[in-house]
């Protein structure tokens, strides 16, 4: 793996993580559970592919299903809480999932060699079944799905629930169903992301799913903006690529990271991509199209 390819792959994986957060944000829920689902996806896919010889796509579908079901189970109690309490509950889930999986220890003989998760040492020798292309195919699929949803009545219903869930209920929308669905979809996306991560890096450990990863998932979305799916994509790209330009700072890169986030939050508290610059781009696009067609 070359340097550029690695950075591209990590960026792609971070986009998937950010978009998984965005799924529940479409209905106004800020979930910090995604890293927990990411860990479940990673360990699940690693187990299925390394120990049971499953191909990648069925393994990813299986972890997506498991994460989706856990998402439904977790989604119902999470509907009762909001804001900081929802953030704490979902953060708790992430921490519990990461700790449980990080301490997982069992070995299975595969072709005469004992393999499996080794607790804090991690899970080694996971088959590399994906590449930068595989990661970006999934990113493209996610972006296409979110773009499509935004153009449909379902997308409009999501916007309504995010804006005012009480009024949305009086529009005849089953708000509980919509919220749990989006929470479960976000969980499934995070599960697939975790699976891709494990089958790309070939080694995972508890450190990959720590609090810092949860914090980054939050920052990608907060910096990029929550108004459209483009925000989390931009946030993930920016916060993955920019720190690479200051590698010479060594350990002090964390300070640079903090400063970037602070400056962006001060200058654009609603994130880099919000309604105003999005409508400006749309107007520019319309005027250029009109000039081209001579209208």
């Amino acid at each position: 793996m070359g340097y550029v390819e690695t950075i591209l792959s990590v960026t792609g994986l971070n986009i998937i993580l950010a978009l998984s957060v965005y799924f529940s944000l479409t209905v106004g829920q800020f979930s910090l559970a995604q890293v927990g689902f990411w860990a479940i996806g990673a360990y699940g896919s690693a187990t299925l592919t390394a120990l049971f010889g499953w191909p990648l796509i069925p393994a990813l579908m299986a972890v997506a299903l498991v994460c989706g079901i856990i998402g439904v189970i977790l989604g119902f109690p999470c509907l009762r809480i909001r804001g900081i309490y929802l953030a704490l509950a979902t953060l708790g889930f992430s921490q519990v999932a990461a700790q449980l999986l990080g301490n997982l220890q069992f070995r299975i003989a595969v072709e005469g060699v004992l393999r499996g998760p080794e607790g804090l040492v991690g899970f080694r020798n996971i088959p590399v079944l994906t590449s930068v292309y595989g990661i970006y195919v999934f990113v493209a699929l996610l972006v296409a799905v979110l773009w499509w949803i935004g153009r449909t009545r379902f997308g409009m219903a999501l916007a309504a629930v995010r804006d005012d869930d009480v009024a949305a209920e009086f529009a005849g929308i089953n708000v509980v169903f919509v919220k749990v669905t989006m929470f479960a979809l976000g969980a499934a996306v995070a599960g697939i992301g975790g699976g891709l991560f494990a089958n790309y890096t070939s080694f995972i450990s508890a450190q990959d799913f720590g609090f810092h990863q949860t914090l980054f998932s939050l920052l990608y979305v907060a910096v990029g903006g929550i108004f459209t799916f483009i925000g989390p994509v931009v946030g993930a790209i920016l916060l993955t690529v920019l720190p690479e330009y200051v590698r010479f700072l060594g350990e002090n890169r964390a300070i640079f990271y903090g400063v970037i986030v602070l400056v962006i939050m001060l200058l654009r508290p609603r994130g880099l991509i919000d309604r105003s610059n999005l409508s400006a781009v749309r107007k520019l696009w319309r005027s250029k199209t009109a000039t081209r067609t001579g209208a």
Partner: protein
Amino acid sequence: MLELARLSKAFGGVRAVDELTLDLPRGAVFGLIGPNGSGKTTIINLISGLYTPTSGEILFEGGKIGGMPSHRIVRRGIARTFQNMRLFSELSVEDNIRVFQAPHTRKIGDWLGTRQMSGNSPLHEKVEELLHKLALTKLRREMAGNLSLGEQKRLEIARALATEPSLLLLDEPAGGMSFQEIKALGELLRNLVAQGLTIMLVEHNMRFVMAIAQRIAVLNFGRLIACGSPQEVRSNRTVIEAYLGNE
């Protein structure tokens, strides 16, 4: 059509609605008046499912609806507006109306297709009709949060009508409207009733209620103190003492 049987709602020790029994006739405007805090909005909240009754029954078209989730009540044919408006401020006027077509968006294809929002679908035609009926056509692409108070009130009614209800609960629809707008609202409500809609109207503008309602119920401290035609209510001594006497 709608029957409230010994309906009560208590908040702690306060009984906002107390043993209320009412029968709403079909195809009429039913006024609900009373001083502030008399329980008018609580009744609308109970009928529309925002609150669960403490005791008593709410029957709509013969079926119990008390305590049912609001989205299911809407699908049964009861729509409402809010005293403190709850428009989707980040959506345009036409999208606010489209969201309220959810009860008639039943197929997966209607939810996930973009074609259903174009000019040749019945749902789209209904949006056009409501925009025209509520004089909102010119404002269709305006964000709901940018509208004047009167325009917002009209949009709230348009949204409620988009659910195609048989019973419409209006919570102070004329508040903040100009004289001309109130006149137009009166005409609209009369037309809707002529087309078979039943309306429960909570309103403080007495001239408006008296002119438009066929029957009026008067509440005080959550209890029914009078019910009858506008003439009967206007001349009722208890009503004059509790409410109208202050006008």
